[in-house]
């Protein structure tokens, strides 16, 4: 009898303690150290912002303290003023347009073949048997090693830069899209058959819609690579474009222009990335 109230008060204390813990939020340290646990949105935005501040702050510190010569690292405001003046006289847009044009042509050409072919390759073992040995060989060849060959074959026009991008992106797209087609749940296809889907319609009616979200992810990722190959192509042979002005700026020791070109590519990459995320949300709302 005497024990009972004691026990209940002990239990009571335990419960209150736990509730308090929950309300105050466990120590912040415990929250952020818990794997996969969500952190407050405000915190993640603040942190992301602070990293940028730190990087730009470090940039100011390095240039203004004189630790690094301005010939190698320009001051932030000189990059900004160069960007503004080139934007105003239109030369920036000319180069941006040239680069975007090459990336888009190369990327679209590659994608319109890689998507249907990759889906077919992942669906039909016979197509896989024919293509895979060759594709896997080519896929590991460094694109840069083909640049001299392309110049020899195609010259130094826009076609050459497009070819570098297509070559760099196409085989990767093909393999990744075939992989996502292969991972389509077999019973999904079986269910489609029992509902009257013909064998020949499987790719279009089942495999394509089922893999649409992952195909868009593949396109988003390979778009980033396309920008990389663009710069490779423009560094070697071009008369315009962001890679070309970087190379020209290096010869004239205009480091601020190089910085501007890099930043522009970053911004454009970020835009296309967001664009693909938007398209995915729009055409595959079920996969979010």
């Amino acid at each position, binding site marked *: 009898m005497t024990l009972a109230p004691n026990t209940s008060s002990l239990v009571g204390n335990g419960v209150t303690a736990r509730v308090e813990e929950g309300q105050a939020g466990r120590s912040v340290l415990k929250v952020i150290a818990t794997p996969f646990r969500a952190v407050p949105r405000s915190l993640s935005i603040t942190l992301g912002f602070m990293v940028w501040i730190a990087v730009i702050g470090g940039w100011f510190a390095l240039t203004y303290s004189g630790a690094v010569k301005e010939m190698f690292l320009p001051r932030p405001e000189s990059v900004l003023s160069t960007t503004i003046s080139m934007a105003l006289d239109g030369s920036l847009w000319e180069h941006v347009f040239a680069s975007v044009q090459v990336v888009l042509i190369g990327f679209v050409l590659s994608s319109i073949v890689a998507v249907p072919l990759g889906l077919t390759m992942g669906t039909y073992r016979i197509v896989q048997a024919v293509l895979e040995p060759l594709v896997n060989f080519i896929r590991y060849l460094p694109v840069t090693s083909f640049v001299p060959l392309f110049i020899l074959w195609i010259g130094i026009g826009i076609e050459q830069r497009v070819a570098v991008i297509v070559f760099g992106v196409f085989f990767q797209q093909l393999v990744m899209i075939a992989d996502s087609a292969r991972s389509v749940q077999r*019973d*999904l296809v*079986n269910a489609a*058959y029992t*509902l*009257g889907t013909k064998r020949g319609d499987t790719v279009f009616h089942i495999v394509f819609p089922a893999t649409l979200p992952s195909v868009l992810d593949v396109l988003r990722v390979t778009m980033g690579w396309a920008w990389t190959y663009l710069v490779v192509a423009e560094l070697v042979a071009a008369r315009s474009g962001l890679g070309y002005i970087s190379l020209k700026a290096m010869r004239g020791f205009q480091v601020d222009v190089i910085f501007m070109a890099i930043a522009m590519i970053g911004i454009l990459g970020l835009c296309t990335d967001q664009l693909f995320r938007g398209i995915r949300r729009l055409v595959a709302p079920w996969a979010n």
Partner: protein
Amino acid sequence: MDALNLTTKPKSSDIGIDNVVLRYGKGDNAVLALDGISFHVVPNEFCVIVGPSGCGKSSLLYLVAGLEERTGGMIVVGGKPVTEPGPDRGMVFQAYTLFPWLTVAQNVEYGPKRKGIAPAERRVIVEHFLHEVGLAKFANHYPSQLSGGMKQRVAIARALANDPDVLLMDEPFGALDSQTRHSMQKLLLRIWDHSKKTVLFVTHDIDEAILLADRVLVMSGRPGQIKKEIRVGLPRPRSMDLVMEPNFIAMKREILELLKNDEDDEH
């Protein structure tokens, strides 16, 4: 000629399975999964196959659906030998197989659409079957927004909306919790009462088998063979209370015995 057949064909067919053999692999590594299975399901019958896991009962269903190729024997559905999958044999799978990119209504509409039925008529069909499974309010949801039980209800509606001659069900409630499973069994009994399709249903749950079936076929494990046929003969409509009835328990005991013997044989 074909169109004429379609309109005069009965909506519920028989299933004839004659000496069906299924062997995986070749040579020494060959595994005999099904060894000379024969039985006949009459039109409008609810036939349940019960057996231990790995006895080949699901494979048998896949053979009837035409999704797997048999090694030997003959399968005839509605007078037509089975050579490949077709919309005359609807199937509900154990795994969730709703098309995730289609809404609930579009999933149910899928079969009729493939058949070329006009949109107005399709809408009537979809409405009817969604109402039948109690999911009319969820017509515009995506499968990812549904619970497991709801997904299987849509899968049943999708199979029936296609108006197959027979309905094949491969442990459709196997992944559900027991409460949901019971309500699904009730729902299936009610729907079957309306449609009177020929049903071939596979399960390892003995209660489920007796509760649903006109006839239970008990299968033995590797190689799979039909061990015994039990006519249930309980009156319909049936309720969950039947599981307490003496003759229900007697049948359950008999099936348990049969499956137990099978286990003993293995060891």
